[in-house]
C-alpha cells in the first residue's frame, strides 16, 4: 500500500485548497498501470520534499467530483497547487527528474 495520504472529494477543499504548504495531488485509479507504476516515485519524492510540500492522492474511481471539476480525462494526472491555485499540471508518465523540477519550482 502506498504511504501517500489518500483524500476524498469532501476533504479536497480543506486539505488542498486550504493548505498552507504547496500540494501535489496525484489523481489515480486502481485499474491504471502507469498510476501504480509511478507510485514508488511519488513516495520517494515525498520522502525528499515532504517537509516543504504536501503530497496527497485522489482515487478518481471513488471520487468523481474533483476530477470532473478539474476536467481530468486522463490519468495519471498530477496537479500542483500553490495557495489554492493550480501552479502546474502533468498528465501521463514522465521522468522523475521532470517531476522534481516541477516540485522545486513551487
Amino acid at each position, binding site marked *: 500500500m502506498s504511504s501517500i495520504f489518500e483524500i476524498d472529494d469532501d476533504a479536497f477543499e480543506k486539505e488542498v485548497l486550504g493548505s498552507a504548504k504547496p500540494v501535489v495531488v496525484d489523481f489515480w*485509479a486502481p*485499474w*491504471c*498501470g*502507469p*498510476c*501504480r*507504476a*509511478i507510485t*514508488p*516515485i511519488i513516495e*520517494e519524492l515525498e520522502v525528499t520534499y515532504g517537509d516543504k510540500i504536501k503530497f496527497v492522492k485522489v482515487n478518481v*474511481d471513488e471520487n468523481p467530483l474533483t*476530477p470532473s471539476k478539474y*476536467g*481530468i*480525462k*486522463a*490519468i*495519471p*494526472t498530477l496537479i500542483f497547487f500553490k495557495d489554492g491555485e493550480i501552479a502546474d*499540471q502533468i*498528465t*501521463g*508518465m*514522465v*521522468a*522523475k*527528474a521532470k517531476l522534481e523540477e516541477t516540485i522545486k519550482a513551487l
Partner: protein
Amino acid sequence: MPQTDYDIVIIGAGPAGLTAGIYAARARMNVLLLEKAAPGGQIIITDWVENYPGFPEGISGYDLGEKMLIQAKNLGLEISTEEVTAMELSPGVKTLHLGEKTLTTKSLIIASGASPKKLNVGEEKFMGKGVSFCATCDAPFFRDKTVVAVGGGDTAVQEAIFLTKFVNKVYLIHRRDELRATKILQERAFSNDKIEFVWDSVVTGMDGFFGVENVHVKNVKTDETKTIKADGCFVWIGTVPNTDFLTNSLELDEWGFIKADKHMETSVPGVFAVGDVRDTPLRQIATAVGDAAIAAVSAEHFIENLA
C-alpha cells in the same frame, strides 16, 4: 582491460531491459540498470497480454511487468531511477551522462523502447482533455460516450475492443482499407457492434471548448472530409524510438531505430540495442526478451575478449 564503474549498463526497464538485467545478474556481471521513470515500459499501458507464453489465461501488462521486475530484483539487479542525457561511445569505454553525474561502462545495452507516435494535427492542447494513448487508464472517463480510435495494427484494434467495455461507440479510423492487426483481433473487432470502421481515412484535426468535441477526418482516396462528434480520441498509429540521448553516435534506420546485427551489436563495438528501440520487423514482448537474452550474452563475451 579498461577500468570502468560497471561491466554492463542497461538503459530502460521494460521487458527487454529487465531480461538483459536478469541474464547479466545471473552471469554475476557488475551491472546497473537505469530507468528514467517507472519500470515496466510500454506494457504497463496494455490491459491484457495474450501472446506471451506461460500465462494461459492471459495476464495484465502491469502484472507481467511487475513479475519481471521482481525476478530481476530477486537476482540482485541494481536499478536506479536516473535519466541518461548524453553519452560518448568508444569501442573501449562508454561514458554516460546522467544530468551532472557521469559514469563509465565497458558495454552498454540500450533498451530504451519506443513511445506512441503522435498525430501532429494540433492534438497537444487536448492531451489529458480527450486525447489519450492509454485505454486502460482513460476509458472509464468516457463511459457511455462516443470516441474515435486511430490505427489499424494490433494495439489499435485490441485497445478499441477494450474501449467498447465502457463507451457507447468507437469509430476506428484507419488509413488503409484493411487492418494490419492479427486475425484473432480482427475477428473480435468485426463482430463487435460498438465498433464502426472508417476506412482509408486520416484524422486532420480536432476541436472543442473544454476538451475534444469534434474530430475531423479525411478520406485519403476521395479527399472527402467529415466531422465526427466524439468526446475522446485514442491514438495508436505506431511508435517512435526513444533515442534523445544518442548524439549521432550509432547507425540508425530511416525511422531512427538503432541498427544491430544478429548479436544485437550496434555500429559501435560493445554497444547493443534490444527491444522496441531496435530496427526490427516485429515489436512484441516475446521478441524484446529474445533480443535481450542474446545481447546480455553477447555483452558478456565482448567483455571477456577485451584486452
